[in-house]
């Protein structure tokens, strides 16, 4: 039996990812884990932006909702609530009793459910309200950007409930296990990796299903689809809801890896960065979203530690380059028949010709 090369490459990548804790050091593993958590969110952007044609500049909001939902539990675990114990930052802010909405988060299962349900449900409800009015395109992007701004402002202003500008940090245990050790980091990495793989295959299936075809049909011609007797609204809302839930999962995992969630991670600029990862990687190809996220974030890590002031320019340049020369992203170079692949082949054959001369 013969396997096409892409399956072999895929198997090697999955094996490398699975054995990464044995190959790379703890610092690199923590970076890789964080970026893989972000790539779950990026796959959601691929679904909404690439496949549904809905550009959201507010994915940070859903990322933050997931991150905060878990962080609230992490702040409460180990505290004796009956005794009147409170998270440290509340004590510093002079809060006298734990706010009522914090109480349920003492239950880890409630928190974990919220990681998925709150951002997913909020994204679905929000997009339903907007798309029902047939608002789309750039207007939708602007509304989501405003949402990101409002959300980060709200988090900063409600210091006594949210930890304000510093966010929530200084976690110790989850389900009674210490999450600050190297061993815990490896376990968290493995959970992240498994979720990335599961998300990848689940979305792959979804995109080949009739739903995936209908979603692309809606992107291509919403009116045509409507006048073929379909209601385009639920297809878009489901896609946006799934992307919101994936952003929430990514946010929770990122919080576990980095030990902090703060407004700086959920505002306008991070939300735009998220779109850039997917633009660079390729918004119509699922693995492109993962590759773009890893590539841009590792580049950011390297560049911003060497030249801290340079990174934002680098990010801007990267975005311009991707949009003008690689509309299908890096992944587009590998897709047979795509414009990028044709250009690439032309360049390669020209070089061969010129070396022959």
């Amino acid at each position, binding site marked *: 039996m013969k396997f096409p090369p892409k399956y072999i490459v895929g198997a090697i990548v999955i094996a490398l990812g699975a054995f990464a804790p044995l190959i790379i050091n703890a610092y690199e593993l923590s970076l890789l884990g964080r970026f893989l958590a972000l790539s779950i969110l990026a796959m959601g952007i691929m679904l909404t932006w690439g496949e549904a044609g809905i550009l959201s500049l507010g994915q940070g909001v859903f990322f933050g909702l997931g991150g905060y939902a878990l962080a609230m539990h992490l702040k409460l675990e180990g505290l004796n609530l009956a005794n009147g114990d409170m998270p440290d930052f509340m004590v510093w802010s002079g809060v006298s009793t734990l706010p009522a909405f914090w109480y349920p988060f003492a239950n880890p299962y409630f928190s974990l459910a919220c990681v998925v349900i709150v951002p997913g449900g909020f994204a679905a409800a929000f997009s339903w309200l907007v798309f029902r009015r047939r608002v789309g395109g750039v207007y939708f992007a602007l509304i989501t950007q405003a949402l990101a701004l409002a959300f980060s402002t709200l988090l900063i202003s409600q210091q006594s409930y949210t930890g304000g500008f510093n966010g929530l940090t200084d976690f110790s245990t989850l389900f009674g296990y210490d999450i600050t050790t190297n061993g815990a980091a490896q376990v968290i990495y493995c959970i992240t990796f498994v979720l990335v793989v599961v998300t990848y295959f689940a979305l792959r299936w979804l995109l080949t*299903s*009739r*739903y995936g075809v209908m979603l692309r049909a809606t992107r291509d011609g919403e*009116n045509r689809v409507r*006048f*073929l*007797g379909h*209601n385009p609204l*639920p297809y878009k809302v489901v896609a946006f809801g799934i992307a919101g839930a994936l952003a929430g999962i990514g946010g929770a995992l990122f919080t576990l890896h980095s030990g902090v969630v703060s407004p700086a991670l959920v505002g306008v600029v991070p939300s735009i960065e998220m779109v850039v990862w997917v633009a660079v990687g390729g918004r119509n190809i699922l693995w492109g979203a993962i590759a773009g996220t890893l590539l841009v974030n590792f580049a950011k890590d390297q560049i911003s530690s060497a030249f801290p002031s340079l990174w934002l320019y680098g990010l801007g340049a990267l975005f311009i380059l991707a949009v003008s020369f690689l509309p299908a992203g890096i992944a587009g170079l590998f897709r047979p028949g795509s414009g990028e692949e044709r250009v690439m082949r032309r360049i390669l054959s020209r070089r061969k010709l010129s070396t022959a001369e």
Partner: protein
Amino acid sequence: MNAIPAPILMMEDVTVDFDGFKALTSVNLALTPGDLRILIGPNGAGKSTLCDTIIGRVRPTSGKITFKDEVITALPEQEIVRRGICRKFQTPGVLPTLTVMENLLVSARKNRSWWRSFTTKTPADETAHAEEILAKIGLQDRRDIIAADLAHGEKQWLEIGMVVATDADLLLLDEPTAGMGPQDTQRTAQLILSLLGRHAVLVIDHDMSFVEALNGYVTVLHQGQILKEGTVAEIRADAQVTAVYLGRSDDDDIAEA
């Protein structure tokens, strides 16, 4: 058998007023099931608005539209389609990144509930129906090509195929031959004639050779009002029609000369 079958679509006194501009004024139109109707008229006569009004894209200011004995004037667009009216748009409205077959399958879906789409299986009868239409529009060899890569005429045929695939009882074809050469135009006429009987068809066009090839009952629209109805020969012979419509191009020629 009745001599005159009950009309499938009735427009009664339909007026469309765009902020003071009357796109349609008291239009009365009755279409027979399985029959052909050709709608002609100079630019801006309100032909496309008439189509838009039937499918719910534009809502009439007054008057009512009845389809199969049901008033559809206020139904949501997709509900009007589900009752059995489907429209081809003036500029080809194919779904460019989907393959030709996918375009037809999206159109041929019988159960249009979104929650029924979480499956990779296509019902066999829908596939068979789509294949049949693929053969009818003559694009079998283009089956797995994305619609964006089709030639202009092929896109027009594909969209006609999509409209037919919905199995609607009334098809509205807005300028199906726009941008086509004479050969493709004749082919399109044959295609449309082959749809009659099963579907009632309302064709909008102003290519007279195409109208003659179809040779159906003609309604002439002028400044939002129905000017004349009759056979192609009658319309050709009508002095008033010639003056406002057929004669217009002559006037333009004179003006330009």
